[in-house]
């Protein structure tokens, strides 16, 4: 996957989560916000950092 494709894919995946996270914070559901935030971070770091995913050696 090329870098622009990866960036698009990443945005598609994280944008709804980011909106949900913001909504959770507005509703003061901070546990949900933290979980969603972790999810966004994980997608950004583990899935789309160009190193693949599910590799236990990483």
């Amino acid at each position, binding site marked *: 996957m090329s870098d622009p494709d990866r960036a698009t894919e990443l945005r598609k995946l994280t944008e709804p989560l980011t909106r949900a996270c913001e909504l959770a914070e507005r509703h*003061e559901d*901070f*546990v949900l*916000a*933290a*979980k969603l*935030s*972790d999810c966004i*971070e*994980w997608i950004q770091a*583990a899935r789309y950092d160009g190193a693949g*995913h*599910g*590799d*236990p*050696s*990483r």
Partner: protein
Amino acid sequence: MTARVMATRRDDPNTKLAPTAIRANGVTMIGHSVGQACGLLLTMDGAVADFLQRSKSELRGLSYTDITHPDDRRTNVSRIRLLAVGDTPLRLRKRYLLPQGGHVWATVQVSKLHTGLDRGLLVGTIFSLDFRDRQAPPEALWAAAKRQLRLITERNAVLGPDLFSDGAWLVLLGLYLAEAEGRGLDIGDDHASGGVSAVSKTKWLRALRACGLVELIGDREDQPQLTQCGIDRIERLLTGTVTTDLG
């Protein structure tokens, strides 16, 4: 009513010092002491003097450092130095030296009075630690917390971190260890918190505050500490692992 709520009420400078030990949540509240900002003790409840096995007159004029175990002194002084007037009470776990040798463990909540002529005086609310309730001394609980952190780190290394998500527990463990070791939680240090990023740590701290397990000293985001409820619950969990390890 929890010991912490009682302690907060008793931190009110208008409240008279209480001579009676009050027991709640597995800790026994002994009473209060009042000292100058430099640490010199001015007055204390009779129960506090009894707990420290000295008379009030023997204690007056001593510094709290004179009766603090040498291994706890540096931490105690450095944390009190950070305390500002009107901040949320700082919680310390420490050993008081006894005049005949040996020591007693206590949890002390320290605040700096923010009103009137007494502004800036240190008020300590002292709780004894009863290890019959806790079943494990602080050193064992500290070691158990370190083991938990090590196990998570090793698990992530062997099985891969992608499978697990431990933000809340890692932040709680990080805070517990930071308090036990007399340092603040380093928000920016991912390694010390089992790989939890600064962003995640900040989010979880907010969530844990909403759950009543964490509070901020002086409303400063960079000065989180466990609430009494947070400490009690973590220690209940850690005590279980100590018992398992021994059994």
